[in-house]
C-alpha cells in the first residue's frame, strides 16, 4: 500500500445528491401508459425503447433523472437502461444537437465515398464525428448500415434519409438546417 503518496490535504467528502426522477405531464404519462399496456405486466421491460424515445423527446437526451424514471417505471435497474441506451445510435446518452447527422460508414457507403462526406461535414460543422457543435444545433456521428446500400453514400438527419450524396447535396441539407428551415419528413417520435 503506497500510503506515502497520500495527498497532504484530503479532498472534502462529496455531498451525496439525492437521486432525481423525471416528471412528465399527464398527457405524456398517458402516452407512456399506452405503451406499457401493450405488454404483459411481467414483460414490462419490452417497453424500454418506446419509453426512451418519449423521454428523449421530452428532455432532449437521456439524462440521469430520465434514466431513473425509465428504470422506475419498468422495474429494471439503471444499468439495464444504460446497457440498452448505449447500444442504439439514435438514443442519446449525452446532450445532442437539434439535427443529428448520421453518416453511414458501412461497406457500400464507404466504397462510394462516405469518408469524403464525413470529412466534408466535419470540416463544415467544425466538429469531429461523435461531437455536438457549440451552438447545440448539430450532432455528427458515423453509424453502421442503415439499409440504403443501393443508393450509397447516404446520411440520415433525424429519421430522414438523404441518398446518392455529393458534397453539394450535403451542403444544401446542412444549409437548410443552419437556416432553420429544414423540414423533417419523418416526424420525430
Amino acid at each position: 500500500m503506497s500510503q506515502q503518496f497520500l495527498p497532504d490535504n484530503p479532498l472534502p467528502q462529496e455531498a451525496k445528491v439525492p437521486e432525481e426522477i423525471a416528471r412528465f405531464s399527464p398527457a405524456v404519462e398517458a402516452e407512456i401508459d399506452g405503451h406499457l399496456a401493450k405488454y404483459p405486466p411481467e414483460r414490462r421491460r419490452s417497453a424500454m425503447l418506446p419509453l426512451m424515445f418519449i423521454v428523449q423527446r421530452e428532455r432532449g437526451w437521456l439524462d440521469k433523472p430520465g434514466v431513473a424514471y425509465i428504470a422506475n417505471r419498468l422495474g429494471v435497474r439503471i444499468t439495464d437502461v444504460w446497457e440498452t441506451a448505449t447500444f442504439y445510435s439514435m438514443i442519446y446518452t449525452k446532450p445532442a444537437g437539434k439535427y443529428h447527422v448520421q453518416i453511414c460508414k458501412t461497406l457500400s457507403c464507404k466504397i462510394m465515398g462516405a469518408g469524403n462526406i464525413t470529412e466534408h461535414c466535419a470540416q463544415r460543422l467544425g466538429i469531429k464525428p461523435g461531437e455536438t457543435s457549440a451552438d447545440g444545433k448539430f450532432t455528427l456521428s458515423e453509424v453502421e448500415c442503415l439499409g440504403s446500400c443501393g443508393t450509397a453514400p447516404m446520411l440520415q438527419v433525424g429519421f430522414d434519409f438523404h441518398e446518392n450524396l455529393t458534397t453539394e447535396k450535403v451542403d444544401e441539407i446542412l444549409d437548410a438546417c443552419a437556416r432553420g428551415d429544414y423540414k423533417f419528413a419523418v416526424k420525430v417520435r
Partner: protein
Amino acid sequence: MADLIKVTINGNVYETEKGARLIDVCREHGHAVPSFCYYSDLALQASCRMCLVRIEKMPKLQTSCTITCTDGMIVTTESEEIEKAQRAMVEFLLANHPLDCPVCDRGGECELQEMVFDWGGLEERFSERKNYAPEKFLSPMVANDPQRCILCKRCTRVCDEWMGEDAIEAGGRGAHTVIGTYDGWLNCSECGNCIEVCPTGTLLDATYRHQARPWELAQTITTCTFCSDGCQLSLGARVGEVMRAVARDRYVDGINGEFLCIKGRFAHPFINHEERIRTPLIRYKQGGRLVPATWDDAIGYTAARMRAIGEAHGADAFGIIGSPRLTNEANYALLKFAREVIGTENFTASDAFSLAPCFENLSAPLATHRDIRFAKTIILVGGEPEELQPLTGKQIRQAVRNGGARLVIFNSVPIRLKEQAAQFIHINPGTEDAVVLALAGANDDELAAGKLGVEAKTLADVRRALDETQGDCVLLFGSELSAAAMATLAQLPQLLGAREGRRFLLHPLPFYNNSVGAHDIGLMNAKLSVAQLLDQAGQGLRALYIAGSLLPEHLRGREETLRQLDLIVVQELFETETTALADVVFPAASFAETDGTFTNNAGQVQRVRQSIPPVHQARPDWMITAALASALNADFGFQLSASAVFREIAEHIAAYEGLRYPLLKDESRPVQAKHALAGARDMTGAIQEIRARIQSMNVTSARPTETPKVGHELFKPGTLTSKTPQFPLLYAGNPKPPTVLVSPLYQITVDANLRATTVAAGD
C-alpha cells in the same frame, strides 16, 4: 434415474445422461474444449466462439456449450478445421487486447494468456491501432481496464444471477462494447465476484492491485472467518503477509464455488495490521496502563492471581466466556479449562443468540448450501441472508432463478431477496413467533394473522405450499425467534408428518463463523447466558476469562460493575472495549495464523489452516489456554498440536465422533457433523408458550416499507473489517471520487468524526 444415451466423441463412445451439455461431457472424458464465456451454473452466452466442435449432420461448426447431447451424436473436437476456427477467434480477441501482461495483475493466472501460451505461434495480422481506454476504478474495491475485456460477460451474468444486483453491464456495441455501469461508479454490495470470474485482467481486485504476482504467493486453503456460511477460500501469502483472499477454482473448490462476499474477499488486511496486539499486556494496578510483558511473566502473573482468587472465593468465583468466532479447538480448550482446572460450570460463549433450543429439538437434518440450491420450497422466517449470510442468500436466489424453487419470505422488512420470492409476507415487527404458530397448525390462524397483520388465507396458502412440495423443503430462520418458537420450528417436520417424496431440512442463520461449533462444543447450552453471567459480577463472580471480545450489546452498561472484578483476562487480536477493562491481555492468533476447525450453519466441520506464522508474539487461543492450565499444574496433553485437540473433541463430543483432520482435508467434500435427531416430541407446552407470548404482545403495524440499502450490514466497520481502509469509504456512502483514474483511497479520506457520525446515525 435419467435415461442414458450414447455419444461418440473423437471416435470413442460414451454413455451419458440425457440432457447433459456437450461441453461438460467432452471435458469429463478428457477431450479438452477451450472456452472463455462458458461457466457452469450460469446462463449460456456462447459469445466467445471458442468451444466449437464438428457434429455430424450439422452444417457448420457448433458451439458445444449450447448443445444438449442427443442419442447417437457423433462429435469431433479436434481437427484442422476446428483449430483454424479457434485460432481465428483468438486472433480476433487479441485484436484489441493490449500486450501489457507485465503490468496486469492477472498475469500468471489469466485464461487468455494461458490459451495463447498453450497454442503458441499465433500470428497477429491486425496492424490497426488498438482501442484505447485508460485503466480506471469502478469502486474502491474494483479496478477496471476496459481494453483487456474479451466480452465473455461472465461478470454481468454473475452480478445478475448470483447477486441479483445487475450492477455491472455491457454498454455500447460491436468492438466498442465496454463493461461498466451507468455513471461509471459501482454502487453494489462490492462482493467482487465479477473479479473472480473474469478470465482476463479486465476487472481486478483494487486492494491487491500491483502488489504481487500469483506465482509468488503461497496459497493456503482455509475457511472464512466472517459469517456462519463457512466459505472456503484461498489465502495468498508472501513472506509472512497475507496479500489476498480468492476462491478461484484453480486454488480451492469448496461449498461456495468461486463465490465470496466483500468480507471474505477484501477484509483480510486485519491479519497483518499494525494495530495488532504485539505482546502480552498486564495492568498491574487498577486504573493503570496496560504494560507489555513477556509470555512467561504474563502466564505466571495470571496463574498466581487465579490461584489466589480460587483459594479466597472458590471455583464459582470464575466465569469463562468463549466466542463463536474462535475455532472449535480454542473453545474446547476453554471448556476443558473451566471444568478441569477451575472446576466451575460458569462458562458460556458470547454469541448474540443461542441455537440450543433448535438443536435439542432437531427433527430434520441441517440443509447444506447445495441442498438449498436444489430445494423446491424455501421458507425464510426473519433474518436477512444476503447481508448476514451472503452465500445462503446467493443459494436461495439461484434456487429460485435457476432451479425454479418456490420462496416464501416472512419478514418485517422488505429485504432484497423479496424480488425472488413467490410470496413475500410482510409481517408486523417482532411477530416472527406467530409465523411458527401458524406453520405448526391451523388452529391459531385468526390469532396469528391478526398479530402478523396479514390475512388468514395467506397463512393457509403457505401451509398448502408446504403440503404440496415434491422434493426438498428448506426452513431457514433468523435470530428473531424466541426459544420456544425455535424449538417448535425444529420440530415442524415432525408436526407436519412424513410424506413420500418430500424431505424437510433445517437451516439456522446464526451470525458468526463458528456459532454452531460453539454450541456443539457445549459452551452455549451452559446453565447461564452471557448476560446472566455478567450480571453476577460483584455478586460472587470475582474473575472473568474471556476469549475474543464481548458483544457491544452485552458490554454496554456493565462496564462499571465489570471494573470492580478482581481479574479479567482477555485473549484478543486488537485493543477493544473489552480489553480496556482487562487486567491481562494475551495476543491471540487470527484464523490465518492457526490450525483448527470451524462448523458452519450447515453443520459442516471445515478446516482452518495456518497460512502465515503468528504475527509478532501472538499464539493460537487453545495454546494460551493450555499454557495457563500448565501454569496451574494441569497438563492438557496437547501442547503443540491442534490435531491433538481435535482428536479429543472427537472423543468427547458425540456429533464429531470419529472425525480426524485427515478426514476433513478435502474441502470439496465437506463433512457434516452428526447432530443427533430428536424424534417427535410433545410440543403442546412450547406452542402454548408461544400462544401466550403472542397474545400478550403489543404489536405495531408500522412496518418499514423501504428495502434496506445494499451493504447496510456488510459494510459496517467492525473491529476486523474497519482495518481494511476501503470499508469506511463504503460505509460513508461509497462516494464517487473526483477522478476515477486514481484509487478512491488516495482521494477521499473519511475522518474519524465522519465515521463516528455515520455509525451513530446508521441503520
